[in-house]
């Protein structure tokens, strides 16, 4: 079976000023299969946001190609949904209207079936009774659930999540991790999940990509062979700490090498 997402020898440079170029990413190669959950971990400044812009089609790589369903990405496509670091909901719209916003923004109007589908999504993320409230009345975790529902409204095959729980407190963050797994099991998607948290990566993903600091590249691709469905007991699984240690070693070795 063909991979859903494929990075072929992707490198990217930014022109910081007329003479200087900043190498953000070098020679990135990986693929993601259908309904696979892939996490990306790495220290700050490893080019995760560049990766995000490339995979969503907001930018094209300087070298190499990003393919989705075997076709090179040149521009954004509806098959890719994005969940941002902060929920960034529109404060003047109700929760329901925030979920249907992508349709409104793309077509100028929202059909009544779409509204029904939005309600189904709100039910999926556990917020159907908040549909007519304003985002300001919701907690940070709830707002991010709305963000997830908004990313799902266009029925994307691929979901890109950019450190979606990093703005939440530790407790909500853990709850949202399990919630995401539940949603993913009910509504299987191909997920690329960017995070700073090693534990979060091991808990959620089928495969973890470790990135090195600038210029960012994938230094390790670690399959996580933990049973699904995952829940609280997964955290106590004997192999959980083992995987987390491998990842930690990879991240900090690279750091140590740089400091020498």
């Amino acid at each position: 079976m063909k991979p859903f997402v494929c990075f072929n020898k992707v490198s990217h440079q930014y022109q910081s000023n007329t003479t200087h170029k900043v190498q953000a990413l070098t020679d990135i190669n990986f693929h993601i299969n259908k309904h696979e959950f892939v996490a990306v971990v790495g220290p700050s400044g490893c080019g995760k946001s560049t990766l995000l812009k490339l995979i969503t089609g907001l930018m094209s790589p300087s070298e190499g190609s990003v393919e989705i369903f075997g076709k090179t990405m040149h521009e954004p496509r509806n098959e890719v949904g994005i969940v941002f670091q902060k929920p960034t909901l529109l404060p003047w719209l109700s929760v329901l209207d925030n979920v249907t916003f992508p349709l409104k923004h793309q077509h100028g109007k929202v059909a009544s079936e779409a509204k029904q589908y939005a309600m189904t999504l709100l039910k999926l993320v556990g917020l159907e009774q908040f549909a007519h409230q304003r985002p300001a009345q919701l907690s940070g975790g709830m707002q991010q659930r709305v963000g997830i529902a908004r990313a799902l409204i266009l029925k994307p095959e691929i979901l890109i999540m950019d450190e979606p729980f990093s703005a939440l407190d530790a407790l909500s963050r853990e709850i949202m991790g399990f919630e995401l797994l539940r949603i993913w099991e009910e509504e299987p998607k191909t997920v690329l999940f960017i995070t700073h948290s090693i534990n979060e990566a091991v808990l959620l993903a089928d495969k973890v990509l470790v990135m090195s600091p600038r210029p960012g590249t994938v230094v390790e691709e670690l399959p996580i062979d933990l049973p699904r469905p995952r829940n609280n007991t997964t955290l106590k699984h004997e192999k959980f700490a083992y995987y987390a240690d491998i990842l930690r070693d990879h991240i900090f070795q690279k750091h140590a090498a740089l400091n020498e």
Partner: protein
Amino acid sequence: MNKALHRYLPILALLALIPLWELICYLANVPNYILPRPSVIYDAFINVDKMRWLEHLWATVRVAVLGFLLSIFISLPLAVLMVQSSFLNRTLFPLLVIIQSTPVVAIAPLLIVILGAGEAPRLAITCLITFFPIVVSTTTGMLSTPSELIDLSRSLKGSVFRQIWQIRFPFAIPHIFSGLKVGITLAIIGAVISEFVAAEKGLGYFVQFSTSYFKIPQAFAALLFLSIISLLLFQTIRWIQAIFFAWSLPAEEQK
């Protein structure tokens, strides 16, 4: 403190000022041409025909409100253009600063010469004095839109028009209202300046007319009218925001 009392405290404080003012002027024997007592001002107010008051009042409100609306009409599209095009931003902004920093009082006589003696120069003067805060606040508001939302818009391939209308513009609403609140108080100042320069009615004209005939209490009465109009117009902007854009108010003001 009692809730109703708390609510009307500002107005009670103002009312309490009146007897105090009366008393001090009476005891210190302040002459009317320096600071007339409230009772003298009231007499002066009664002595002028009601229709005349209304005529002057209406002339000033009309110029202030029309000039203000005109400046909104110019400012908002200008702000949108300046946000969308860095070229226009770089070229227009210095020009706006120059216009803003030139004293309107100095331009006013020129505008009368250029635009004639009708209502046009008065509207132009009011507009000139009010549009700057509105342009600046709208531009700032539109630029403060979170970059994620612009990414979202781009990932949806939304048109520039929808990006402005559905995202940037609503995001600027709290800022726009700050600009409008500053603008509306300036609008009254603009209207009065324009009446100082060339008018045959309006409260600004009436103040000038009264002082030149040494009718100081009458000028004070007109002055009070100006303050009241200013307050009412300012309140109107707040009401509009509270009724139509309640979400844009800080949480403690939304109740």
